[in-house]
């Protein structure tokens, strides 16, 4: 793997919300069409908080320099079934005209773009437990490729009784979300933003049945750490979005044991059995990591997601600390014409 890393990417804002109620996020009424789907509502509340934390709330429309990446896999289930059941029961006239847009998975990202005036890349990522992590990876890659200077990224899902009854796990599903503001170093520095963490590395792979899953994922993780110039011994925590039991949890455990040998293995923070299913799990793992980095109870936290479909995603979050100071100094010098 020969990854180029044009600039550092920081997380400068975070918003976490629970529930999924229909109350509107503050200051986000403009431009709405039709009923707001509950997951979009939830992510909008997170986004409003994250932007405020990042010092971007006053910016109004974020415009073409910002993008949005929403990690959602199951957001549309209720909307699809409500539309289809209404049509089956009452015919076409029983369907609300604006119910249809909520049945497509990118409705959530679209709503966020409309609400916050985001006119850069507008993407939805669906990879079950890895959705939120993949949304963050997508955002970082887009910033690296120069397609945006910043992104609102994360994921989650509103509660759904249908999904709950279908979930093999005990307890409820969804009802939680987290969104993050990711920014390239130039944008963050020139705004004087205070980073919560540096997105120091990321990797994705697929673990097909019959393959050497732990070996593939382990190699991926080793490469990630090498490219991020972070030693395995310096990772104190792994925040996991993987289902807490089952084959994926076993593979994850094996990968961690392989990547972090010896007595100083990181603390593995497993997700809760209750409310964290699919899209919620990754975003909550990331918010836990940021909490640890903010205290600071950790310097480097690895986010890990092994989805029930075979996806493996890793994101390495590091305390911005001294490296940030050096980067900010360099950007400031460049902006002042010193380079």
């Amino acid at each position, binding site marked *: 793997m020969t990854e180029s890393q044009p600039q550092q990417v920081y997380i400068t804002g975070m918003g976490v919300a629970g529930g999924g109620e229909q109350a509107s996020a503050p200051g986000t009424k403009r431009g709405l069409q039709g009923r707001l789907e509950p997951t979009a509502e939830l992510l909008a509340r997170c986004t409003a908080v994250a932007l405020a934390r990042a010092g971007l709330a006053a910016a109004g429309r974020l415009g073409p320099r910002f993008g949005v990446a929403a990690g959602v896999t199951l957001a549309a289930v209720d909307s699809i079934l409500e539309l289809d059941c209404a049509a089956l029961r009452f015919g076409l006239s029983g369907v609300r005209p604006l119910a249809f847009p909520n049945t497509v*998975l990118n409705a959530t990202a679209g709503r966020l773009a409309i609400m916050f005036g985001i006119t850069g890349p507008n993407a939805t990522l669906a990879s079950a437990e890895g959705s939120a992590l993949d949304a963050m990876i997508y955002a970082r890659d887009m910033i690296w490729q120069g397609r945006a200077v910043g992104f609102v990224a994360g994921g989650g899902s509103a509660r759904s009784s249908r999904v709950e009854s279908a979930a093999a796990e005990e307890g409820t599903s969804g009802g939680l979300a987290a969104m993050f503001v990711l920014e390239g170093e130039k944008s963050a520095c020139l705004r004087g933003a205070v980073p919560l963490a540096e997105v120091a590395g990321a990797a994705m792979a697929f673990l097909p049945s019959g393959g050497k899953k732990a070996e593939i994922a382990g190699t991926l993780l080793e490469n990630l750490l090498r490219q991020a110039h972070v030693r395995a011994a310096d990772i104190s925590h792994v925040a996991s979005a993987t289902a807490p039991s089952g084959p994926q949890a076993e593979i994850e455990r094996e990968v961690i044991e392989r990547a972090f040998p010896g007595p100083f293995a990181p603390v593995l923070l497993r997700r809760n059995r209750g409310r964290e299913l699919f899209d919620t799990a990754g975003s909550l793992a990331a918010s836990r990591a940021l909490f640890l980095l903010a205290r600071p109870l950790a310097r480097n936290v690895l986010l890990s997601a092994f989805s029930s*479909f075979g996806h493996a995603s890793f994101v390495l979050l590091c305390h911005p600390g001294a490296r940030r100071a050096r980067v900010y100094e360099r950007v400031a010098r460049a902006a002042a014409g010193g380079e």
Partner: protein
Amino acid sequence: MAGSKKRVVITGMGVVSPLGGSLGEFWRGLVEGKSAASAIESFDTASYRAKNGCEVKDFDFARLAGCPVPPNMGRASQMAVAAAGLALADAALPLEEVDRTRVGVSLGTTCGEIQVLERVADNEVGHQAGCEIDPCWWLSVYPACSIPASVAHWFGLCGPNVMIPNACAAGNYSIAYACDLIKLGRADIMLAGGADPISRVAFTGFARLGSLAPERCQPFDKNRRGIMIGEGAGVLVLEELRHARARGARIYAEIGGCGVTGDGYHMTAPRGDGEGIARAMELALREAGLAPRDVDYINAHGTGTVVNDKVETLAIKKTFGRWAQDLAISSTKSMIGHTLGAASAIEAAACTLAIVNRELPPTINYETPDPFCDLDYVPNVSRRRDIDVALNNAVAFAGANSCVVIERVQ
């Protein structure tokens, strides 16, 4: 643009379309101006004004794969796996000889495995009484990520595996991200594209929005009345140029650049001034290092709705200025319908074949010029023309715009 100077080329294509299950049938159908529209058979349309769609009537995964359909594989996944298989065969890629951790999958969709949820709905309203559906089953099949996962499982691909369900722009978004992953060094080869099955929910939704054409799709025609729902899958084998040359691969064309933008304006309507679509085209051209005069052909999003075609025409004029009149533009949706998340992937294949075969597919059902759509839409008959650069436009609900530049490799 930051990043490396890696170049991404197309070395294989696979299309499962309403015009047939092979690339050859697809292309012949396009240049012959064949319409795939016919009465929908997948579900009952008795209560709808529109009855037609573009289904892949003869699709038989079990026959193609030579084995029964796995119980957890829906129609979208079946079509995606079939298209991926065709693309890999077309690319003559010996999978057993390549590092499969460097081969990834990036796919898009609108509805995904929605037919699974349609069965759940049938069950809920009692249309299939006595046919209880195991909720654990639909939760394991419906999620859109099962589509690229099925492709990766089937071919044993361990690289990045991404699902970007960006509705009608999903194919282009997936191609764009696949290119980025290659350029960033995270994969050498990506299977990129999209898949969507015919969907009762989508048909109902578009019907309720008043966007369904009753009998045929007439993009850019003055009397156009809407879209024709279709289904299918398109997959491109994207490869880093040096990697492709090193293995002696046939190179169809190069992905010169991509532009992805958002309108941030409306859930179902594009911005009236076409700014978002124009910006996507401008960004794609900039990334490709091309000027408007360098472009020969645009495969338009061209859905056949009154607003979309008008706005896209405006956006093309905005981007190309006086060069807009010299462009050839066509909408292959006039023939294969709107295959939603697969559309821009299939259309990327059409652009590539247009470059390779030096022939432009037409816009069929074009009868009456619209003063608001006054460009050259290659009406009704294909046209021989040497082209070096084609643009593939796609826009989606909530204003997700995209453009991919496909160019002849010099």
